């Protein structure tokens, strides 16, 4: 059904449509660290199973690491494989570090007979595609943020301050590197820097390869953009929120907006 060129596969993953099970994730070797100059190794991929690489590697170039002081941290030993990207960062000071892939791009979809065709790329290149007039043509502005955080010593909140662009996790009562089974965690979600109410959030525990049911939990942010998740089991979790809306027109073509946020975190046994 799909022509599996790398580009198409990556686009499918990024569109975050519920029909498509591909999930983008960045997972650290460990998220809670002690001692000085700790190293963390990350795996990043777009896959069907959490957290097993089985589809497409995450684009290494899109990955940016930020330290507890808000300054960029060097992404080291990076390698983009066929189905998995891997890299390291060194935690030279205490606090919370963030690794994120933040991308905005234009995509388009249209019909050619029964088939849905897709394109994605920079907005400036849309005109060159000569897509105008194609049946059911619609463009989307996609804003995706995929991230994870790790902490050396005491957790800090500097890197978790929203940048004001797209959907972002906001610290409420809990820190994503301080989660334990049997406890309830409360976080906030922001859209363009403002509390995002009534947004559906999907939380999935990793290792879904070893169970038959998908095991998805859905929660919705309240009027203040706050949501709560209870963790009955320790493990690694994946969290996603995607907002779709109409966004007027782009070069005369009807446009939709897709904004998504994805993160992963560890829940430790008590």
């Amino acid at each position: 059904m799909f022509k599996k060129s790398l580009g198409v596969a990556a686009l499918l993953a990024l569109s975050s449509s519920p029909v498509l099970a591909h999930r983008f994730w960045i997972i650290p070797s460990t998220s809670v660290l002690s001692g000085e100059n700790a190293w963390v190794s990350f795996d990043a991929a777009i896959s069907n199973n959490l957290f097993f690489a089985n589809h497409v590697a995450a684009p290494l170039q899109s990955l940016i690491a930020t330290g507890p002081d808000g300054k960029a941290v060097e992404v080291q030993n990076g390698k983009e494989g066929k189905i998995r990207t891997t890299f390291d960062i060194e935690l030279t000071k205490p606090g919370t570090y963030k690794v994120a892939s933040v991308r905005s791009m234009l995509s388009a979809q249209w019909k050619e007979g029964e088939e849905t065709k897709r394109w994605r790329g920079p907005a400036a290149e849309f005109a060159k595609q000569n897509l105008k007039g194609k049946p059911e043509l619609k463009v989307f502005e996609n804003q995706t943020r995929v991230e994870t955080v790790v902490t050396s010593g005491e957790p800090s909140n500097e890197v978790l301050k929203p940048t004001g662009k797209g959907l972002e996790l906001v610290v409420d009562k809990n820190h994503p590197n301080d989660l334990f089974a049997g406890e309830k965690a409360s976080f906030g979600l922001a859209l363009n820097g403002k509390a995002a109410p009534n947004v559906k959030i999907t939380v999935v525990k990793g290792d879904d390869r070893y169970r038959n049911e998908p095991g998805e939990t859905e929660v919705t942010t309240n009027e203040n953009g706050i949501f709560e998740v209870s963790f009955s089991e320790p493990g690694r979790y994946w969290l996603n929120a995607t907002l779709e809306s109409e966004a007027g027109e782009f070069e005369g073509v009807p446009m939709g907006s897709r904004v998504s946020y994805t993160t992963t975190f560890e829940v430790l046994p008590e």
Partner: protein
Amino acid sequence: MNKKTLLALLTMLASPTGFAGEVKLTIEIPRLEVAEYHRPYVASWIQAPDGTVVKNLSVWYDTDMKDAEGEKWLKDIRQWWRKSGRSLKMPVDGVSGPTKPVGTHTSTVPVKVFDPAALPAGDYEVVVEASREVGGREMLRLPFKWDGHAAVDTATQGKTELGKIKFTITP
């Protein structure tokens, strides 16, 4: 001023200079028949009913490794790390020390580490948490009541990583 208030005042005045009795903590590290054995990292502390740490009593970790490499595994004493370890600068005088071999280790807790005279009356727990490299983890709780003067004598038995644990306050 009545007699009772005077007494309370005197107790308060006396507390900074410390407690005349003795606080003892016994931690048994059991012998384990495993292919690869490393001495466990062990932390003990006193906590309030809401789980907040009142005092750290001891932290045993690998203090001999170069470049403080032993601190890398402190986070594996998970609850201790979360509650207080991660906000401490190691080593902590009178509290931290090297890992201990298999056996029963009884130590007197110095007044500078924990002074019962300064502990408000109430319900508390002594918590002992052990974590072993290529091994397991166990956490034990010993509830006790402190009224300011009555002796405390409490003990429990671990199942895997810890043996007998005993805590006493002898006024």
